[in-house]
């Protein structure tokens, strides 16, 4: 049993884009605020702070999540990857290229979150259907584009990832991301 106050300053350690981070922050502030205001890592954007826009998405232990909903006291030990740290995932280049070609974004403030959602989906599900794409992007709000340009980019990315997967599996290569996520939430152990 441990107990602290939400305003207490907490020591936390986690990895950020592969780098070990040790820092302190008030226990109740969000991971978004830790990244932006404590670590000055502003590549993760801040939108609504209640998990309703997706601007702050990061990969936490391999899953796309809203960093504004994770409080400092829940971060310790996690593996965090931001939109600027996706290079290690093999499909990131494909996704980014497809989105750029289709002119998917305008102001771009939502883009890091969308890219997180897409890379998470296509890493896990290289044969994603259009409906999978929609489901993966439901939690990302974009106010500029009306979504069709993003969908065109996402579909192009998905098609290329499918081809890439077919080619790499033919060459007996593994598809798994280099940074393998610890199996936590989606396990179905007895």
């Amino acid at each position, binding site marked *: 049993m441990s107990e602290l106050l939400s305003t207490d300053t907490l020591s936390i350690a986690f990895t950020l884009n592969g780098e070990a981070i040790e820092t302190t922050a008030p226990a109740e502030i969000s991971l978004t605020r830790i990244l932006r205001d404590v670590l000055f890592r502003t590549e993760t954007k801040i939108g*609504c702070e209640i998990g309703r826009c997706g601007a702050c998405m990061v990969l936490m232990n391999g899953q796309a999540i*809203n960093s504004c909903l994770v409080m400092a006291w829940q971060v310790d030990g996690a593996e965090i990857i931001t939109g600027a740290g996706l290079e290690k995932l093999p499909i990131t280049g494909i996704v980014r290229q497809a*989105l*750029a070609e289709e002119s998917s974004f*305008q102001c*771009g403030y939502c883009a890091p979150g969308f890219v997180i959602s897409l890379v998470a989906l296509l890493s896990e599900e290289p044969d994603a259907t259009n409906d999978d794409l929609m489901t993966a992007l439901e*939690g990302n709000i974009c106010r500029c584009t*009306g979504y069709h340009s993003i969908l065109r980019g996402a579909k192009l990315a998905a098609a290329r990832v499918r081809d890439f997967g077919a080619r790499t599996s033919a060459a007996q290569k593994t598809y798994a991301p280099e940074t393998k996520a610890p199996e936590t939430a*989606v396990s179905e152990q007895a």
Partner: protein
Amino acid sequence: MSMKIMRPDTPAEALKLLSEAGPSARFSAGSTALQAEWSLGKPKPSALIDISRFKDLRGIEAHGDLVRIGACETLSAVIGSKLVTDICPLLIEAAQRVGAKTIRHRATLGGNVGWRTGCLLPALLALDTRLELDTESGRTTRALEDWLAEPSAPNLISSVLIPQQDPDTTYGFRKIGLRAAFTPSAIAVAAALGAADGTITSARLAVGGGPVPATRLGAIERELVGQDHAKVEWTSLRDEIADLIPAPSDALRSSAYRKRTGANALIALLASNEAGRPQRTGRTIRPKPEETTLDETVLTRSAGGNRWHVRPDLPAKIAAELTYLTDARREDMLVGATLRLDEPHARIFSVDVREAEALPGVKAVVTHKDIQGDNAFGIVFQDQPALCADKVRYLGDPIAAVAATDRETALKALNLIKVGYEALPVVGDPAQALDGDTEAVHETGNLASTIEIERGDIDSGFAKAAHVIEATYVTPRQMHGFMETEGGYAEPTEDGGLAIFAGGQHGSRDRAQLARILAIPEDKIRVVTSPTGGGFGGKDELTVQPVLAMLALKANAPVRMQWTRSESVIAGTKRNPFTIRMRTACDATGKLLAQEVDVLADGGAYASLGPGVLETANEHACGPYISPSVKTRGRLAYTNNGTGGAFRGFGANQMTFAIECQMDRLAAACGLDPIEMRRRNLRQPGMPGFLGQRVAPSERLFEMLQAAAASPLWQADGADLRPGEFAGVGMAIIYQGNGLGTIPDDEAKSRIVLAPDGKIEVQFGLDEMGQGLLPSIQAAVADRLGCAREDIRPVVGDTLRTPDSGSTTASRGGYVVWKGTELMVPAFADSMLAKAADILGREPEGLQVVAGGIADAASNSQAPLLTFAQLAEQCPPDAPLTAEADFAFPKSDYTRGNARFIFGFGVNLARVAIDRVSGQVRVLDLELHTAAGPVIDLAAYLGQMEGGLVQGLGFTLTEDVLIKDGRFLTTNYDNYFMPTIRDTPDRITNFALEDLDPGDPFGPRGAGEISINAVTPAIANAVADALGQWPTATPFRPEEILTMCEAAE
């Protein structure tokens, strides 16, 4: 206030802590709902007890014919479970409608149940779920239904036990939300109906979701059991169900709506044949199909070919490498925070900041006393204080601000500021605001502005009419909803001035406004306004800048500040809500005779651009149609309802909604198709504008009608309809004025320079807010100069580095870029060729500009003889090759009122599906034809079209900032519903008619607003095509649409 965060080691310990900590303590597992609850202003719990680590609360496993799901399993885990799929697929169907995928990665099944409001509860009740509970007297199991009925005794849900679904039972779940996805429930329903040989043998019906208490409908179940399914009286049963559903009203949906739609949804689930009845559609008379001879550009990447380019700022945005102005971080930066009063209307007596100033870490506190210049700003007239001195007029009004070493300290300091005040009567209704007896929001009275026009004999017009349509159209207080909230940073400069970096739409005007407030000469202020993460008009007025500037000057240090979304909701400008009463008359042939329009606009607390919005609405009061008699009146009222201002469309889209619905209604009355009705009334090219002003050539209204007639949507089949949907098609004409009009100054400067590194630097004091200013500059200059886009470095949005090009508003940016380019480039090209000729020892006439540099004009290879970098090296650094432009936005000659000269044209078609269960409208197709001159950059133009359409779709169907008596019922994105990717139409098709009349010197028309102009009436007319009635209030109220559906049956 701080909470205790407790992390017990066992469930038993957790339960003990909960009992001891009292009723305001909460278990925390995924904790996805906590922040949303706090943001609604509910107090934080006294303690959070972390239960996320207990192994015992995990696992999904079979127990005989049950599945046991650990309470801390996430919804994603439930959805991904093969076991759950096999045993109770209904739960998966329901779970897929909770939140969004990333929320479901953390939200737990136990949480959805334990909060007692989750929208899974009806499904779980229909599935006969039991809960495994840890209580003070040990572990026990209880039926979910019984647990819900009991008062909340301290217990911990350890697992959820769900029996195998019965193969002879039909299961169904339906969630009615507030938009297509990622939405709270208006109501959710579930049913399990068992039958043998056509006789109903068992029934479990449940409702819940959102504010609807999770409830089983026992009386209905008992009534159904034993009945022959084929003989059930569904209609009377529907009424019985509606009576029994315990549904409260809230700001978003009425009790009656929840009851009706809940009952409809249950009946649709139970009577499986009920929903699929064929629908009569197509009430609107179809236009005669026309052969279209228009040479339109299809706006797609594939059709665009080599006109399609990757915009220069996009790769960095996608790689999360672009630094926005709110992203700047430095160790020496202080953090600012703003104090507001929780009263929408109050007299202030005193502001005591001494305790705040004394708090360690606080570096500056500012109030109105620190203002050296005028405590007033505003684009049209200066009625808004930078910091309130004696009065607060809306909840967003700032009273004081703090700069401190970190955000937590700044927020703490705000709590130490004491404000003496007296609440004043709140002015919450614009009509009432204009009654003489109502409390005055401003000393000048509550009528912020008014405008009237009368011409022709309106009385005789109505007297002669064969048909008169009168209706009142209501439009919402739409929020811009840019993803980057208002913010940035400011720092003092060495010359005693200030540099400020904050998203905006006209840096030079921000600078002029700041100079007045700060009493600092304009030339000592630098304003940087790009890149901005979305504007749409909402960053046109000053936002954070006055407070940021004052804090930086007083602290003599850099200060950053970004409004939270909640602050942005209450403090930022919004679209002025309109009530438009419109009475339109025509003769038996459909020719208009009279148009009478009365607009009442809610200005909120301050004018900002509200008077301009009202005046623009007035200028569009007849749309592109000719009426021999016209009478208009517009009034803008001050209230305490937030504050209004500019928003894409700027009054024109509201008015277009009204007119274009009137035209369809008159067409129906006359027995004409919508195109013929419009054709009979359309202005002819070359006629004076609505105010009698001279207007620009290249009108394309008849061409747009032709495009509409040729649309395939009129003949669409219903293959994409879901069971129980009505379908309809509608159209509306687009007519949108560009520029600021004849009265305001509307001028622009620009500059082009060959920079020392060989880049061609093109400087415009416009802002890149996402619309594609940077690719537009590259495209325009590259096309005119002959170089490559990559040779060009656009420089924008910085008063130090760019000349004043006017505002990035009013669809004027595209023209300014094009015109500046036309004026600068020939002289610049001449100077480059002359210099190159000098260096190369050739004649300038024998040289040309090519990609990368200067080439031999006679050579086919296009290989540069001299690169731009080599050319730049030969120029003295203090005298680079350069050219400038200084010009006026084209204006008309009419100055008795504000009149536009340039207009954009188009037509919007919409095809909708309307759900008879919920009254929700789903837009299947949007087709947009625009005629706005040559398209500068294809991808940017397409982006403006699609983005504006979907922003207009939000205005039409789901978006409204709700305020009651000055208090915001809308607080954040959990109760403001912008379209998600599931709300966007299945198909959007875009066409541009790019040609201009011979000799038309005015180039590209604006692309920024044209696409939002007529999407609302296109959708409304499509609804009327399906149902025979026109929705007149936006966002459409599903309750009203439901009534129309019933009437249409």
